[in-house]
């Protein structure tokens, strides 16, 4: 692990931390446009985070240290994930610290901590949120892994950098298995990032919320970290998706600061497209009942498995 590699790593992490709220802002703006609403400012998420940091934290009297530590854990896990996902370059030092499976594990760690924190206070909504979150997670996580496995089978590696390298290296080829995986991945991403049709990030309607129910009791800096972590999660998922399905423009080979900075505009462009697509999906679909979620995610899971099978059947 040399110094320049470390620097590049920090750079990618910094860019990810910076870009993540922007992506959320962009998606919100796109959605507003698509729904013929007046859009909120693009930089609103930054302002929200700053505003939250400035506030006094209010913590319920019944909270244990778990409640306070969780936002930091979640944030740290998401930041680490952002460092690992090859969003800008493939040859980064941390890229090998965790492969696709470990990445999913990292997401799960964040999810578990958030769920535990939600249960900590012993409020009705908190526990409900935690239950629903775990309930979504238990199907989404395998589905995501299936998608990643499909890609792994093609490239013979579970390391995301290697997957990207392999996929980007080849000529444009259509992998039928990746088509399945792509659909599955989209579905999982929606669920994991608390998007319509599984959850609604904008709602506070008690009976339908999942993510919001869990973070209901958080305020100020804790909430800010959670929001930021959520934004990072969206960013990470988007980057994974881009790396798997549009692995172009990512700095391969040597990853010095210049290469990273060179890859950034491409990433922003791809993210803009992705964000638009997400907003489109959210606009076009309706929120489903919570008990339909397993069907939705089960479909995603099955598509992921089908992707693997197709890959094995047709060969990569």
């Amino acid at each position, binding site marked *: 692990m040399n110094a320049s590699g470390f620097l590049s790593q920090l750079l990618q992490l910094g860019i990810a931390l910076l870009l993540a709220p922007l992506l959320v802002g962009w998606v919100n703006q796109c959605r507003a446009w698509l729904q013929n609403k007046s859009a909120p400012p693009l930089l609103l998420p930054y302002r929200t985070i700053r505003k939250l940091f400035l506030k*006094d934290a209010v*913590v*319920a009297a019944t909270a244990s240290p778990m409640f306070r530590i969780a936002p*930091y854990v979640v944030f740290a896990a998401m930041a680490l994930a952002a460092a690992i996902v090859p969003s800008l370059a493939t040859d980064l030092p941390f890229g090998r610290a965790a492969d696709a499976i470990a990445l999913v*594990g990292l997401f799960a*760690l964040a999810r578990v901590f958030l769920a535990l924190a939600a249960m900590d206070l012993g*409020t009705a909504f908190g526990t409900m949120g935690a239950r629903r979150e775990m309930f979504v997670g238990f199907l989404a996580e*395998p589905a995501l892994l299936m998608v990643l496995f499909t890609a792994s089978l093609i490239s013979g590696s579970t390391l995301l950098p290697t997957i990207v390298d392999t996929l980007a290296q080849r000529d444009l080829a259509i992998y039928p298995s990746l088509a399945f995986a792509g659909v599955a991945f989209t579905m999982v991403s929606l669920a994991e990032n608390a998007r319509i049709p599984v959850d609604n990030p904008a709602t506070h309607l008690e009976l339908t919320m999942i993510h919001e129910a869990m973070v209901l009791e958080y305020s100020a800096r804790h909430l800010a970290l959670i929001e930021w972590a959520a934004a990072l999660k969206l960013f990470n998922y988007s980057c994974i998706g881009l790396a798997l399905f549009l692995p172009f423009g990512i700095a391969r080979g040597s990853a010095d600061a210049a290469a990273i900075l060179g890859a950034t505009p491409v990433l922003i462009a791809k993210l803009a497209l992705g964000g638009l697509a997400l907003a489109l999906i959210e606009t076009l679909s309706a929120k489903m009942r919570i008990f339909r979620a397993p069907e939705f995610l089960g479909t995603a899971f099955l598509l992921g498995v089908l992707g693997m099978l197709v890959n094995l059947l047709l060969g990569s």
Partner: protein
Amino acid sequence: MARPRNLFYVGRVLFSAGALVGLLLAAVALVGMNQVPHTAVLPLGLPDLPFHLRLDALSAFFLLLLGAAAAGISIFSAGYFRASDGAAPGLLCLQYHTFLAAMAFVLIADDAFVFMIAWETMALASFFLVTTDHRLPEIRRAGFLYLLIAHIGALSILLCFGVLQGGNGDYTFGSMRSASLRGAWPSIAFLLALAGFGAKAGLLPLHVWLPEAHPAAPSPVSALMSGVMLKTAIYGLLRVTFDLLQGQLWWWGAIALVLGLVTALFGVLFATVQTDMKRLLAYSSIENIGIIVAGIGLAILFKTYGKTLLAAIALTAALYHSLNHAFFKSLLFLATGSVLHATKERSLGKLGGLIHRMPWVAWLALIGTLAIAGLPPLNGFVSEWLLLQAFLFTPSLPQSFINMLVPLAAAALVLAVALAAYVMVKFYGVVFLGRPREPNLAYARDAGRLERVALVWLAAGCVLLGLFPVQVIALLDAVNVLLIGATVYRPEAGWWLLAPIAADRASYSPAIVLVVTVVVLLLTIQVVHRLYHGRLRRGPAWDCGFPSQTSRMQDTAEGFGQPIRQIFEQFFRIERVLPTPFDAEPRYYVKAEDHFWYWLYLPIARAVDWAARRVGAIQQGRISIYLMYSFLTLLALLYFVG
């Protein structure tokens, strides 16, 4: 008879000594891992078959597991057992240490006879431990079921050895290794071993005793049973399949794989709907055993197709998971023991908020919870990661059926692991988090000093096993060499990076994950507090402005499991009592049982009963009829002769 008080102190001293012996055992095993097998013959046993003992890498590994886990559990027991617990402490101590010794003998046995003796002594000692609190009928029932299935399993193992010796009449393992079995015999031996050891391990459909017996036993015993005893079954399966049987068949692997995964899924599904914390952990043990057996199945599969590296990875995963499970499951069972002692309550519906009253137990249990949920950077994740690697790098095997099976199996495994996280969040959240569901939980006291030491030991094991997989795998390679003939340890990848196949194909570095996470976490805390402020106010929970909240409004264990119960409704046999609007005392009751009891066990019991009735009919009480039996026997035999 010594007074219980004296015995209590004796127990304390003896249990501590037992812990030391456990450590010693682990140390010996550690040394023995990489040495040539030691053998010994004791002048006991049958005249033609004295006790043969042997310590090779496989034995040493499991001995290490036994010693390390038992050290923690014994220390815990030293502080745990009290005179008021029903059985005399001296007796308990005797049974406990017999149990430990029997397990150790199982691991170093080198002939069928001493193996069977140790095996059954183990079952017997644990049976008496399970029924410590024998005044409760359900505990007696659990004990009966346990011993019965253990005994049936033992008969199957005995039969397996009978097949293995291949007609030469020599029951030492050494001669079984060299026996050449022909035709279907190896397969029969394997199936018998799978059934016999599966009964002990809790494989479907012989698992029914496990969720009964584990909750019934005192917690250290549950820990020992779940953490260590189940592993002796894994040991036995490995010993028979890889060591005693020469050459395997691919479909054995397929069977073990499918059975393991079905067991894993079954276990975890049932764990989600449990309302008793120890039952929940027991079902979780079924799940983990399923994962381990799936790993073994995969190893067999790969080995038969000559993919030794992958076989070694799968085997490593299975062994690693055994070790991990020994640590985190013991930790969790001991934690439930502390909770049980502090609250006298096992039902999840009556616990909650113990993190405030029992911080030591709660935080240490958190480590176990995260580890068992398979989250990085703890130990549970490493073994599951390894297993998934083995799945993923299945190059196209010659059997297309297997090629299709592997991804499906991977999917099932992932599903089971994900559900495990669900289960563990439920377990931890309901027991330790939230608000106390019963008023008397306010009097709960944290665990004593010895108990804490034990929990710290086991939790440290979970963390260290998670952080240093490369070193652990280096150790495990001795077993791989013995059983598969391949190694997984790649020294060139560095001490911090786990890359079993090739550095560019898969790698994982828990150390980096932990360090980075901790650094980011600390940095964030510092930055946030420096740049802004650290002001904090305490207030009542908001909960969407809902007034007058009570602790009853939290999700119960049933509530938490309800979505899973609903989705997988067909898998459960659900008994439900719903209150009507007019009930004066509304009562809600739901019980999710498994179908096996009704579909498999009861029919068998009925069939035996039917047969017994038929046979009983020959004894009518009339002496003439009895005389006629004698007469007819005589005539028949005479006819036969004449």
